[in-house]
């Protein structure tokens, strides 16, 4: 067998698993995303009592805040921020495809999905905070997002939106399937994935 063949076969298995995993995730997302949303609310609460509640609106999350806002006509109300959690959780089907393609088994899949939750919660929480920041200086200052806090929030948002959704599944998979990765990288010709 060509030394690269096991890696290319593994890539083909990932792609094959990705199709049903993406479909299942998209269908189940309104339920699958809830634990990450709850965790995100807890994460935001560390910053202060900004959020009164999170309402689930189909596939979207509405963060009902305690921040006051005034409309162009002068009416007062509270700021409601809409977050699409799927932008933070599409790593779920990716991790599932990686684990299933490397025959990691259902236990590792469940553990891996649990390990992803903090990263997904981070992405959702900082997506919310970044929107508060972009809502304008008055809203941002009510939320305490000024100076270095604003800079740190912007950086955390970039990490959460550009790196975590795709990197976290791979990092979790490498950590869980280190032996399989070593086999692929070193003695790939003799790869026999552990049975699930």
């Amino acid at each position, binding site marked *: 067998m060509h030394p690269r063949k096991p890696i290319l076969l593994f890539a083909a298995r990932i792609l094959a698993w990705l199709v049903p995993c*993406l479909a299942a995730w998209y269908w189940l997302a309104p339920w699958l995303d809830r634990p990450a949303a709850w965790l995100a609310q807890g994460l935001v609460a560390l910053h202060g009592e900004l959020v009164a509640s999170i309402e689930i609106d189909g596939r979207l999350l509405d963060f009902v805040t305690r921040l006051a806002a005034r409309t162009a006509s002068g009416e007062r109300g509270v700021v409601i921020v809409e977050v699409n959690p*799927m932008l933070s959780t599409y790593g779920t089907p990716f991790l599932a495809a990686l684990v299933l393609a490397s025959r990691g088994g259902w236990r590792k899949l469940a553990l891996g999905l649990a390990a992803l939750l903090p990263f997904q919660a981070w992405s959702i929480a900082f997506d919310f905070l970044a929107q508060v920041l972009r809502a304008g200086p008055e809203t941002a200052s009510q939320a305490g997002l000024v100076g270095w806090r604003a800079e740190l929030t912007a950086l955390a948002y970039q990490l959460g939106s*550009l*790196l975590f*959704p795709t*990197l976290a599944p*791979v990092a979790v998979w*490498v950590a869980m399937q280190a032996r399989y990765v070593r086999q692929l990288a*070193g003695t*790939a010709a003799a790869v026999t994935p552990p049975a699930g």
Partner: protein
Amino acid sequence: MLRFLSLFLLILVGLFTAELTRPAQEALVQPWTATLARLCAAVITRFDRHVVALGDVLESTTNGFAVSIRAGCNGVEATLILVAAILAFPAPWTRKAAGIAAGVAAVQVLNLVRVVSLFYLGQWNRVAFEWAHLYLWQTLIMVDVLVVWLLWLRWVRVEPAPRAPA
């Protein structure tokens, strides 16, 4: 493994933070994104003359549909992840340099395919465009990064670097 993961995260966060600074954006990221748009236009005009690149925007001259290549779609973050993964792994510097050169090319070629495919997908169906743009292609690019890294690891570990005679 722990040493690799720690070093990888340290390098990645350093590169990522540096990439977000204004000088890096102005000197590297924005010019690269504009070059990517021009490259995409050059590829497309081989079979479709009705496309122009304006800065980071790729636009159809027939129906006005345009895509703007932004952060996350220019392949920079995926490239940084691959570079950090190669740099963090103990290997001869010549192998690291070769891996980075080939790996960056592999990521950017696939990214070019992504932008071109999204350009046409968007003209065909907006729902399919959004889905491919937000979820599918992001994952496929990361699969590319992982496969390139695994192939590089195998090359580094199985084929020892040539040694000078004693």
